[in-house]
């Protein structure tokens, strides 16, 4: 099969999103089912792509319009992208199931479109091989996210959306300035070619450009102190969307950050940027964990936790070592799984019991035992308890961090993790050991999803070999820039 068919990853969500207006009259159920089917198809394609990439071991280069890079835009679906595109599709699929329960606010047809386009945006961001195209996909993701954040149309939602928008706007403007500088200095927008030419750029330009690009992406990647929008957006967005934010939107941002960071590693001030990122990531973890400590709203609490975990990923990526990147990718996978589980569980509770305040979680173990189990397993995993998946990635990250000579960062991050343990502990205790209540009926599909996710968490926790080998391949994809340049079939323009 022609590997160019991988472009369907972009085409399918697009065309189906455009189709939604035509089925406006069909009613809520129909549209949600439609989304479910589309995400399933997308997941199927992503699985095929994944198979293809991992069996051949070679990345798929989708060349739009048949132009070879750097003339045309290419999608570079290497081990990392293949893996994450799959995760994006699968998470979207699961959340499409959750939509049936969680989203009641009209207009569903618009929601469906935005939902599909959010998936598209993240897919594009992960797959693209062109820096300006990255900007475009980033904006697609961001604007969809703005709209979805405000989708509930409450004051809080709009407020969160506003904050997201202001910060995102500033970030993307400066990102674009950075892109402009890079273009001005190299004359190309293709990432591989930029990586080739990075060493020759005038050092001042390179410093400014790299700093600006990283700055812009750091806003999306929720690094402190650029993450002020994140908890609000997470809290206000519809529950499935929150899960998607946490599971792949922010991941796409942080991936882009890491990708560009490593592509530009020939730049003279690269080390300085790494130091700055490490400091920012460490602070991210600390501030977010402390902020979560006394949070009454569980959704917001988990949002903070998500921010901190992303900080951990950022830390891993900013180490500048192969081990760090591998560990970061591993953590990305694990984190995506547990955050989907957690936001699914919490969202479901919020839907059933009318709010995500901690009071609603009292006695949850008696009222909705399976959901409670899901939230519990997610929490325990987040804390890093063995037999659950995060344990391995956290261990990897800490080892890599100390190995790279940043023992202080590891110590601070772990210190903050103690705080994390405390608030998850409170949640688990509230769920199982306080409160009383009648048992409620739990939705079978959602329970099935939760059990599936629990099974995956435990499976990775007990037998992390497969996930780890995937992470290593994917990490190598990011870290090994020379290989990346070699994989992209650059035609001999200029260089």
């Amino acid at each position, binding site marked *: 099969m*022609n590997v*160019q*068919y991988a*472009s369907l990853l*972009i*085409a399918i969500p*697009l*065309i189906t*999103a*455009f*189709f939604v*207006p*035509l089925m*406006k009259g069909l009613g809520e159920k129909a549209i949600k089912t439609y989304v479910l089917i589309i995400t399933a198809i997308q997941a199927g394609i992503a699985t095929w792509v994944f198979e293809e990439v991992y069996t051949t071991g070679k990345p798929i280069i*989708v*060349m*739009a*319009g*048949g*132009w070879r890079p*750097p*003339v*045309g*835009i290419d*999608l570079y679906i290497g081990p990392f992208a293949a893996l994450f595109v799959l995760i994006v599709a699968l998470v979207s699929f699961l959340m499409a199931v959750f939509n049936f329960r969680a989203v009641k606010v*009209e*207009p569903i047809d*618009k929601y469906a*479109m*935005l939902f599909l*386009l959010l998936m*598209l945006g993240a897919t*594009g961001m992960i797959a693209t091989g*062109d820096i*300006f*195209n990255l900007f*475009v*996909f980033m*904006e*697609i993701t961001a*604007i*969809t996210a703005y*709209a979805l954040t*405000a*989708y509930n*149309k409450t004051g809080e939602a709009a407020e969160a959306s506003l904050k997201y928008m202001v910060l995102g706007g500033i970030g993307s403007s400066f990102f674009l*300035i950075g892109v402009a*500088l890079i273009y*001005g*200095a190299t*004359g*190309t*927008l*293709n990432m591989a070619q930029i990586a080739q030419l990075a060493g020759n750029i005038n050092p*001042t*330009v390179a410093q*400014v*450009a790299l700093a600006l690009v990283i700055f812009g992406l750091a806003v999306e990647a929720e690094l402190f102190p650029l993450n002020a929008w994140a908890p609000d957006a997470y809290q206000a967005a519809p529950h499935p969307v929150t899960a998607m934010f946490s599971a792949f939107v922010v991941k796409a941002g942080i991936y882009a950050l890491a990708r560009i960071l490593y592509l530009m590693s020939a730049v003279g001030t690269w080390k300085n940027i790494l130091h700055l990122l490490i400091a920012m990531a460490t602070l991210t973890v600390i501030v977010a964990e402390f902020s979560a400590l006394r949070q009454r709203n569980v959704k917001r609490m988990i949002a903070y936790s998500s921010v901190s975990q992303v900080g951990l990923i950022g830390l891993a990526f900013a180490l500048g070592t192969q081990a760090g990147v591998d560990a970061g990718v591993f953590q990305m996978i694990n984190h995506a799984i547990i955050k989907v589980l957690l936001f699914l569980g919490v969202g479901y509770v919020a839907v059933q019991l009318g709010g995500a305040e901690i009071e609603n979680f009292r006695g949850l173990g008696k009222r909705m035992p399976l959901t409670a189990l899901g939230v519990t397993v997610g929490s325990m995993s987040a804390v890093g308890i063995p037999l659950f998946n995060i344990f391995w990635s956290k261990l990897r990250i800490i080892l890599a961090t100390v190995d790279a000579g940043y023992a202080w960062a590891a110590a601070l991050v772990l210190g903050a993790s103690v705080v994390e343990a405390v608030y998850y502990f409170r949640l688990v205790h509230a769920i199982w050991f306080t409160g009383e209540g009648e048992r409620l009926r739990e939705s079978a599909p959602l329970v099935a999803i939760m059990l599936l996710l629990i099974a995956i968490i435990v499976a990775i926790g007990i037998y992390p070999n497969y996930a780890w080998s995937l992470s290593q391949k994917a990490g190598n994809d990011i870290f090994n820039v020379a290989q990346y340049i070699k994989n992209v079939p650059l035609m001999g*323009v*200029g260089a």
Partner: protein
Amino acid sequence: MVSILKRSLAVIMLLIIGYWLAQGLSGIPFGQDKMLVGKYYLDNVIRQTGAINAVTAVVVNYRGFDTLGEVTVLFIASTGVGALLWAKRRERTAKTEGSIVLKTGIRLLTPFVILFGAYIFIHGHLTPGGGFPGGATIATAFLLLYMAYTMYEIPRRAFENTEGVAGMSYVIVALIGLAIGGYFLFDWIWQTWHFGVNNVGRILSGGFIPVIYTIIGIKVGTELSGIIDNMLREEVRE
């Protein structure tokens, strides 16, 4: 007091940032030829795409992916605005009609404005312009209608459907490229069919650029009109 302090602090900070940006930019000489890929485009654009406007060739053909994204972004904006401002029943609440000059002028001009918009996007591969400016021009016509008449409303349903169909058509064109040429967004009209090879510089050339620009023009026009429409109507509670 605090405000002044804050303002002056902001100014100082921004000046430092500005100095830094300027320092960076000074490494990129203004007005010098720094082209790398751009040169390739200029050299090959006519042969490879059949368009003499290199910008539109780049936009639609070489960097078609960006444009697809761009269309999507606008689509998102229209959807998003629609989603956010949605209410069970909404009506226009404007109280004052436009002046007679406006009303008469609009009545006369609307077809021409739309026609001009269409002209712009159809000639995208030849002259400056293209789908986006063209679409925007068309939307202007509807904006003017809204300004002039308090009761005017676009045929919303039809517009939304058009928007969707146009978007789908774009993707379908791209997918046909995938089917025929093996590449997504492949210019099958020019490169496979060689349609209009002898016509370079005239309207029936440029491969799929005019086709796509037409689609984009229609889409942008309906989308922007839709946004205007959404913003001008307010919720009505019984």
